[in-house]
Structures are given as C-alpha cells and as structure tokens.
C-alpha cells in the first residue's frame, strides 16, 4: 500500500479524484459547524457570547498539533523508507500548520482579553504553542534555505522529528503546571465534559478543518510535484 502510492502520478490520480469531494465536504461541514456554533448553541453562563470564539480556537489548536504530528510521521517515513511522497507531504503541510497555529494564538488572545483581562499570559500552554509556531517557522526556513531544494528535505525531516518533543509538552502542559488556560475538557479519560449542544458544532468544525487540511494539502502537494518536475526538466535541458 505504502509503496504502491510512492509513485507521484498514481498518488495524484487518486488525490485529484478525492479533491472535489473533500473541498465540497469542507464547505458543508464548516457551514454546518458555524451555523450550529453561532446560532443554535447556547451562550455560556459565565462567558456569555465570547464562548463562540472557542468553535474556531479549539479545532484550530487541535489542527496545529495534528498537522505537526502528521509532519513528524511522514518525516520519519521519509527518513526510514526514503518514501518520495512523504517528504513532499511534510513540506506541503508545514505552512498550513503554521497558519492554524497562528489562528489558535490569535483567537486565544481575542478570547483572553475579555475573559482573563489580558491579551497574553506566559503560562505553560500558551508558551508551548508559541514554541510550536516558532518550530514551524524554523522548519519552513530550513526547507527553503538551500540552493538545491532537494538538499533541504532531509535536514527538515530531522528537525521535524526533533521538534516533535514539543507535542506532548503542549498536550500535558495544563496538567503538569498550574496554568491559567483551562485543563482538557473535550478529550479526557472520562469522555467529553461539555454539553452536547456545544460538542456538536465543535465536532463539525474539527471535521471541517481536517477536510480543509486535506484539500489544501492536495493542492499544495500538486504544486510541489509540479515544481519538482520543472526542476528535473530544467536539469535535463542544461545537462542534456
């Protein structure tokens, strides 16, 4: 299975077939999630209407970590099996993940101002997510730092794996330290601790963001593969 799709052409044929469905479903899920979240879910008894920021904040925080995990896994695959597409998937994912991380920080900050009375606190959760953002930036910089684009692939893969130590720190930061950020309430050992009326829009948004990641990821992957082909053609012209 893994090696069958090592061929970019074969992979892209499947990916291109999936793409319109993914894009359509993204729109559907995001529309449903936003409708449920903004109009059909109750306001919080403490937070009032600002609780609705959570419907963007929580899914994008989840995506920020999910995409990094995906990058780390595909980097490991690229290093271990020299899988040609794994490198490209990691590289195509990085800017999307960086954007989700930025959205997480931004919405968190907008929520923090009315709720905590401050745009930013240096608690463990916020700081570790900020570090995640820096790691994304470093990864993107490293990928683009070499004159021969193929040369950056392996260093970037190593960096992605080194930076993965940050993921468990983010996840457990709210348990290990006393943070202003509230502890986990959606994914816990005892099941979700929030009301279904709020859980459903959250779930729709999370699925929608995931589909968005897949759609944009396929588009970016298409760009990466085209760029690699152009490079090879140019090499063929100059050396042939």
């Amino acid at each position, binding site marked *: 299975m893994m090696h069958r799709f090592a061929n970019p052409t074969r992979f892209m044929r499947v990916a291109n077939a999936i793409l319109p469905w993914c894009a359509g479903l993204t729109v559907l899920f995001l529309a449903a999630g936003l409708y449920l979240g903004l109009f059909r879910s109750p306001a919080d008894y403490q937070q009032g209407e600002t609780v609705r920021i959570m419907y963007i904040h929580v899914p994008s925080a989840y995506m920020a970590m999910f995409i990094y995990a995906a990058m780390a896994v595909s980097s490991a695959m690229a290093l271990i099996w020299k899988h040609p597409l794994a490198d490209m998937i990691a590289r195509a994912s990085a800017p999307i993940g960086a954007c989700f991380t930025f959205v997480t920080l931004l919405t968190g900050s907008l929520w923090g101002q009315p709720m905590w009375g401050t745009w930013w606190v240096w608690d463990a959760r916020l700081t570790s997510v900020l570090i995640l953002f820096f790691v994304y930036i470093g990864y993107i910089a490293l990928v683009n730092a070499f004159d021969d684009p193929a*040369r950056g692939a392996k260093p970037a893969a190593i960096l992605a794996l080194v930076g993965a130590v940050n993921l468990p720190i983010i996840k457990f930061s709210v348990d290990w330290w006393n943070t202003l950020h509230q502890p986990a309430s959606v994914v816990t050992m005892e099941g979700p601790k929030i009301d279904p009326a709020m859980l459903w829009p959250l779930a729709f948004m999370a699925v929608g963001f995931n589909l968005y990641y897949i759609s944009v990821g396929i588009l970016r992957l298409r760009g990466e593969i085209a760029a690699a082909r152009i490079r090879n053609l140019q090499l063929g012209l100059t050396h042939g």
Partner: protein
Amino acid sequence: MIRIMRLLVTRDLRLALRQGSDAAMVIAFFVITVTLFPLGVGPEPNVLARIAAGVVWVTALLATMLSLDRLFQSDYDDGSTDLLILAPVPLELVVLAKVLAHWMLTGLPLILTAPVLAALMNLPEGGYLVLIVSMFLATPTLSLIGSVGAALALGARRGGILISLLVLPLYIPVLIFAVGAVDASITGLTPRPHLLILGAMLAAALPLAPWAAAAALRHSLR
C-alpha cells in the same frame, strides 16, 4: 575509541586556542551584552536584582548560539568532515567529542564569568551557588541541542541566522527551568525540582542530539 575521541577533543581545542580569539569573543559578547541591560532599564538595584538571573541566562544562551557556527562549519569548509566520517569511530561519537570541545571553549568560560556578571547585575546573595550549578547542568545541553542546529544548517544560505531560528525555540525549556531554579533559591524555595528537570534534559540530549546531528552531518556531504 576513547583515545580517538581524546585526540579529536584536543585537536579542536588546539585549533581554537591557536587561533586565540574564539573563546575570548564569546566572553566579550557575554560581558558587553549584559552591560547593556543596566544602561537600558536603568540602574536601580531592585530592578536589576529582579531581572539578574534572567538577563545572565538569556545572554549566555545567545552567546552559546553565536558560537555554534564554528562547531562544524570550518571542518565543512576545509573538507575535514569527509575524513571524520571515515574515521574508525562512529560519527555520533565524533559529534560528541566536538560538542565536548565546544562546551569547554564556550560553556566553561561562560560559567566562570557568570558569577561576576551576576554581581554586576546585583543578583541577591542566595542565587550564586544555584546559578553556577544550573549552568553546569544546562550549558552542556545547550551545546548538544546546538550541535543539531549547526549540523542541519550546514551548507545553507545565511546559515548563521538559520541556526538561531532552529535552535532558539528548542532552548526555551532550558531557559525556563534554569531561571526558575535561580529564582526559587532567591525566594527561599528549594531549587531541586528545577535542577532535576535540567538534569533530565541533559540525560535525554546526551544520547539523542549526537545521533540527530550525525545524521544531518552525513547528509550535508551528499
């Protein structure tokens, strides 16, 4: 194997010391940058005492980072890296030897100067011992993590800035716990948990960092 590693360490030390200015430059940077803070935030003793540990540590971090490019770059430029890869010891141990030499040339001098600079910054009495202990525990970790960044950035455009982008985010946890240890001891709490975590980071970086750095080093010659 031990003999070869010792040879590598002495080679690096000799190269750096014959050139002379390398270690001295790091210290000069450390001293000058710390001096900027009293001038920048004003010389009130209480303010300085409050930020002393943080300033000394942040500056030590930057000094270490600036010295990273010489870790592999000169070997890479003159082709010694090819020979080091062919050496009869695993490349991981070669990296470890080079990191050790790097630490002796930057970490040790930083530790020796730090108390003097802390005195300039008016660090409260109770903090000195813990400052030195935390530096002994954490500066090797900085060199180790730095070796990964330096190896990854080999052959890149604008390698120096790239190293800082790669390495500084990974330095943040070290900084947090090192400063936490000093602050705890000043306020009369026990610095023990912070120091234990610094020790844990060193124990984790010691086997993992040379491994990652060696992988990057091998790739850089492809």
